[in-house]
């Protein structure tokens, strides 16, 4: 009995950590696609760019890990403003197929561009010593980096919840997304607001990318390799809901981890089965609005 309990708690902890990783790499998309309603398949490209900025800052300029992550957030977020103004802004009112084609094209261009400059080989990252050890819980050993990811994930959830739900800026964004014309007519500068929100989403993508390098590795194909996971998290969570993305990431993370532990031959079956089941029950996602 003790053993079963230990295994159950262990699976919950591992699944929680894995779910947080899913959340962190997807949270940027739940802003650009979820909140702004743009089918932004290029989310992974911004995440990949964030990974490269982090690694380059660390290896070429000797910036420590945490400031390098902040650098990735700021640099990619700022660079994305140019993309938003020049390209994305033209497609806000386009249909979804146009947005898909545009953003997937952007992904392939990003992969080619980063391959050209960085080559196809994976970029290693050296995280600080305090993040590379393990935390021993007696019955289970948790990698320190995963504990760190859980903490970062929790901090992001709190910051985003506060920002969107409790500040006037957040209220304006929600208003602009819900009814653009009405928001404009009460004096909200919607274009500027969207640019800022997009920059935030891209910055978060970059942060997720930088954090993920140590777990998932970094090559130019990062931009498309994990696309399915980003989309699943946002779709199951429900468009426009950060809370939904968190819950979805955790449910999927725990299901996937437990499924693979108990029945490894099932492989990727569990995460997709959970996705289908949840979407059948709630077609608009866990916290989505129909």
């Amino acid at each position: 009995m003790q053993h079963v309990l230990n295994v159950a708690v262990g699976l919950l902890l591992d699944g929680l950590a894995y779910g947080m990783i899913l959340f962190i790499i997807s949270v940027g998309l739940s802003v650009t696609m979820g909140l702004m309603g743009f089918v932004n398949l290029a989310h992974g490209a911004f995440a990949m760019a964030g990974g490269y900025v982090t690694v380059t800052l660390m290896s070429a300029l000797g910036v420590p890990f945490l400031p390098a992550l902040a650098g990735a957030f700021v640099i990619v977020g700022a660079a994305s403003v140019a993309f938003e103004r020049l390209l994305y802004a033209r497609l806000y009112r386009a249909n979804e197929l146009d947005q898909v084609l545009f953003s997937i094209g952007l992904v392939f261009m990003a992969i080619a561009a980063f391959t050209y400059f960085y080559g196809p080989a994976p970029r290693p990252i050296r995280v600080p010593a305090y993040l590379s050890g393990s935390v021993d819980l007696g019955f289970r050993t948790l990698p320190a980096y995963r504990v760190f990811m859980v903490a970062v994930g929790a901090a992001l959830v709190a910051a985003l919840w506060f920002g969107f739900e409790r500040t006037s800026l957040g209220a304006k964004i929600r208003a602009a997304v819900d009814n653009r014309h009405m928001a404009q007519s009460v004096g909200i500068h919607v274009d500027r607001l969207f640019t800022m929100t997009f920059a935030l989403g891209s910055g978060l993508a970059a942060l997720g990318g930088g954090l993920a390098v140590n777990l998932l590795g970094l090559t130019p194909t990062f931009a498309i390799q994990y696309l399915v996971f980003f989309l699943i998290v946002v779709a199951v969570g429900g468009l426009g809901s950060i809370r939904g993305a968190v819950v979805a990431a955790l449910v999927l993370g725990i299901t996937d981890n437990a499924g693979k532990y108990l029945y490894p031959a099932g492989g990727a079956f569990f995460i997709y089965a959970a996705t289908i089941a949840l979407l059948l029950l709630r077609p608009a996602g866990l916290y989505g609005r129909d």
Partner: protein
Amino acid sequence: MRWMRNVLVGAALAGLALPAAQARTVKVGVVLAFSGVNAEWSEQIMRGAELYLKQHPDSVGNNKIELIKRDSKNPSGTVARTEVQELITREKVDIVAGFAFSPDAIASAPLATQAKVPMIVMNAGTAWITNLSPYIARTSFSMWDAAYPMGTYAAKTLGCKTAAVGYTDYPPGKDSLEAFTKGFESAGGKVVDAIPMGNPAQVPDFTPFLQRVRDEKPNCLYVFVPAGEHAAALVKTYGELGLRAAGIKLIGPLDIIQDTKLQGMGKAAVGLVVMGHYAADYTNPANEVFVKAWRAAYGANSTPDFMAVGGWDGMAAIAHVVKTLDGKIDGDKAMKALEGWKFASPRGPIMIDPKTRDIVQDEHVEEVVEKGGRLHVNVLETIPQVKDPCKELKVGKCAQ
């Protein structure tokens, strides 16, 4: 009008002066995954192959080799097959080479048979690939070369009574599982669990698989995952989850300590025991020349690995064919020239087995040790001239 006569005479003389042995250009189509996950492998293989030609310009006699590179992208085999078909029908290549992933070689094999074009496999390691066409020769390895003797060694020398096997779920993974199980169980061990761990296209989270092993408490964990990012993540997770402290030894083929990834693995890799045929640390003369030329060509900080050697040896085999046939490539004659071909490879002496057209090479039991802040590969034991045990024992598809 005088100049005209001079020109005509000159042209006639030039025509007479044509050399008896005409220099020919041999077209070699190279199909490798230059993009996609683990594109680094293909870079290694290509660099190894090109370096051989650069270092040995005379190895093709009076002739020339023209390389036509094609990208096989993802490891599914479909793109590779299309590329091979185009290379044969449109580019009219004389030889095809490369093949980073097993599915690429498996899917392309029927084309080599139909077109009677020699196909030099420079990496893909599923044992029965060489059974798929009489026009295939392999200069890399068979999964069984390492996995089968590793099974015997784990049971007899490492003293493992039980083992769990984790493998990436595609042909070479299953091959490695089967080979290790056969070697281990025929030497008295027992495989208690076989765990498929995701696919080669994506690095999975290894946590649930390794936690499962940790709770099963076998003496040994034998793992086959593709070299590169998979291997780096696996060794890291093994270290972080405390499996070593729990008394579970991690063993495997050399893929888990690929030279290009080894230094990044840090302390987690120290003490790993693998069965392998190449490490950049080898001190034989051919390897010293090879590593020196590599660093001169690709940078002092870059290191070749076993994939680069597969490319180097593959190109040496192609050069041997071109020279033997003096540039007139005929499928059957080319295979004849390869059968029994011997070569001083950076990995040690190798031969193409005349019967199976697969490589025969030394396998070494190697341990990772730390010396002066660097990880080194220490050879504990050598098994000379291993012939693919899968074909020797006639197991499954290897019997056909």
